[in-house]
């Protein structure tokens, strides 16, 4: 365990420095991750989705189907020309699933990134000293955690003008408490460690200790939380799209496609099936990867998955 250079052992935290995340990846955690077949599968799925997302317009057989409709070929069953069939406007579902990968990942990365930007500083500040400020921050976190995310996101999404941007803001506003809580716990754990005392005694400022020393040591936990958050966000964003408070037509959103498909059942079974399988595969990839990262980072971290 001591060889992987992670804060798995309280007495031996990562040495201070400014290049911590690469160290974490170089230090054998990655090798350990790749030795776990399930985590490797997760990584492969995520990499595959990233490639599909980046090259979506070139990979999709009919990239113009993001906006164009061809009513003459509507609701065709899967065939050689349209492997996933066509939808109610005659658009190639395979192309729209491929194009949807990009929007799903863009939404998830933005939401998780924004949630991190809010939650991580709050967790650092709240975990550092027991003051009225930290008490207040954590109570605010509790309030946000007291309502199931989807409900809160629905309320927020409705009160601002419904749309994809609103849905993203709402999702970020409901996911940051998870980062705040993760970082809060890590900061509290680390602030009593010997190396923090040593840094304080040689006159390092709290900001320096938190940003250059505590934050890098909390990075594995943040990374695990972010990976699981990606899967969770993709699911919730799809649900919002399905309920009509997310992406708007004609964007090639998976949740939206499933909602449009409902009126064409049971004839067009392929219409909801393939977008749903895409959600399943991508979320599965992030969840498997998150599990693997958690095991690689610290086998004792057994937290619930949200």
């Amino acid at each position: 365990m001591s060889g992987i250079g992670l804060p798995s052992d309280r007495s031996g935290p990562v040495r201070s420095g400014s290049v911590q995340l690469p160290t974490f990846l170089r230090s054998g955690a990655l090798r350990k991750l790749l030795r776990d077949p399930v985590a490797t599968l997760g990584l492969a799925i995520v990499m595959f989705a990233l490639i599909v997302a980046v090259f979506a317009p070139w990979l999709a057989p009919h990239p113009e189907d993001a906006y164009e409709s061809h009513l003459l070929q509507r609701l065709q069953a899967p065939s050689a020309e349209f492997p996933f069939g066509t939808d109610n406007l005659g658009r190639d579902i395979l192309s729209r699933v491929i194009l949807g990968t990009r929007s799903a990942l863009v939404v998830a990365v933005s939401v998780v990134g924004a949630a991190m930007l809010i939650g991580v500083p709050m967790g650092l500040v709240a975990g550092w000293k027991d003051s009225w400020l930290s008490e207040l921050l954590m109570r605010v976190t509790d309030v946000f955690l007291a309502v199931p995310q989807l409900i809160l996101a629905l309320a927020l999404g409705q009160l601002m003008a419904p749309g994809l941007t609103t849905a993203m803001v709402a999702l970020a506003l409901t996911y940051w408490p998870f980062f705040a809580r993760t970082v809060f716990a890590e900061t509290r754990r680390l602030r009593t460690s010997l190396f923090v005392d040593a840094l304080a005694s040689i006159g390092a400022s709290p900001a320096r200790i938190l940003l250059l020393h505590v934050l890098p040591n909390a990075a594995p936990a943040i990374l695990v939380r972010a990976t699981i958050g990606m899967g969770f966000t993709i699911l919730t964003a799809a649900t919002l799209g399905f309920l009509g408070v997310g992406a708007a037509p004609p964007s090639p959103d998976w949740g939206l496609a499933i909602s449009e498909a409902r009126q064409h059942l049971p004839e067009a079974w392929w219409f909801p099936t393939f977008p749903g399988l895409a959600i399943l595969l991508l979320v599965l990839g992030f969840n498997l990867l998150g599990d693997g990262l958690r095991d690689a980072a610290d086998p004792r971290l057994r937290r619930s998955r949200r």
Partner: protein
Amino acid sequence: MARYVLRRVLLTLPALFGLILLSFVLTRVVPADPAATLAGDAATPAQLAEIRARYGLDRPLWEQAVVHVGQVLTGNLGSSIFSGRPVVEEIALRLPATLELTFAALFLSAVLGISLGLVAALNHNGPLDHLVRLLSVGGLAIASFWLAIMLQLVFSMDLDVLPLRGRIDVALGPPPHVTGLFLLDSLIAGRLDLFVDSARHLVLPAVTLCLPGLATIARFTRSGVLEALQKDFVLYARAAGYSPFRLATVYVLRNAVTVTVTQIGLLFGALISGAVAVEAIFDWPGLGTYAVQAILSADYKALLAVTLVVGVVYAVVNVVVDVVQALIDPRVAEQAL
């Protein structure tokens, strides 16, 4: 124990109070002009001013906040903009349907999840174990609204063995109202036909809704049992020659299940969230359908009331879960004090 319960209840109060404040911020601060939202696009300035005066929107913000908190505490959540009826009444009408669905799902996920987790751990690294592990990761990756539609497609449309939507056959009508839970009410009325029919309607929504919970519970039970199997008292019981069944149920499971109970509390939030989409798909006349209708008709009063009610129910469930956990494992209460 009593001290623990009291402490746990008191700890919940600040979060609930914050929730009421949050609901105020959501209604009064987030929309640019609530009066305009209420009045609609065609309102004249005079009408706007009148609405502001009637709803107290012309008073200072802090005063409005105090009034809002007072109203919520006295159970006055306002009237639905859409139907004009008090939202509390409308929610009370729909809550039993949601509770019946979520409890059925919770029951399924607990029973199936604990059994699967136990079976997996007892076959550690065997084929059954891998199957359960796959299920416990896959179950959390499935979008419940999609699963619901797929189940409808297969079991209601293709095979035609289960009803497509609703809580009960319209021709039969609901059982006489006692609890609002159709399964219970039809038994109270002694109507077996109604019981069977409402149970048949419950199958698909409950199965859809139980999957994420089942996955989580199976996962935690599995790791809990694996951990308990390593303990000395299990080794002793095994040496003393107890049957594997008795060993698993009496010695291992009771020690493994405390973690699972906490998960059930956390799951409740996921269940309520899942219920929104699942109810909308199965036309289940509960809170979820109500919330979706509120979204479609821009009824922010109704939506906020749902948020508050769900928040309160969620908090209560988590207190109950903590207490149950302390009853199973008294060490939990001692550590917290």
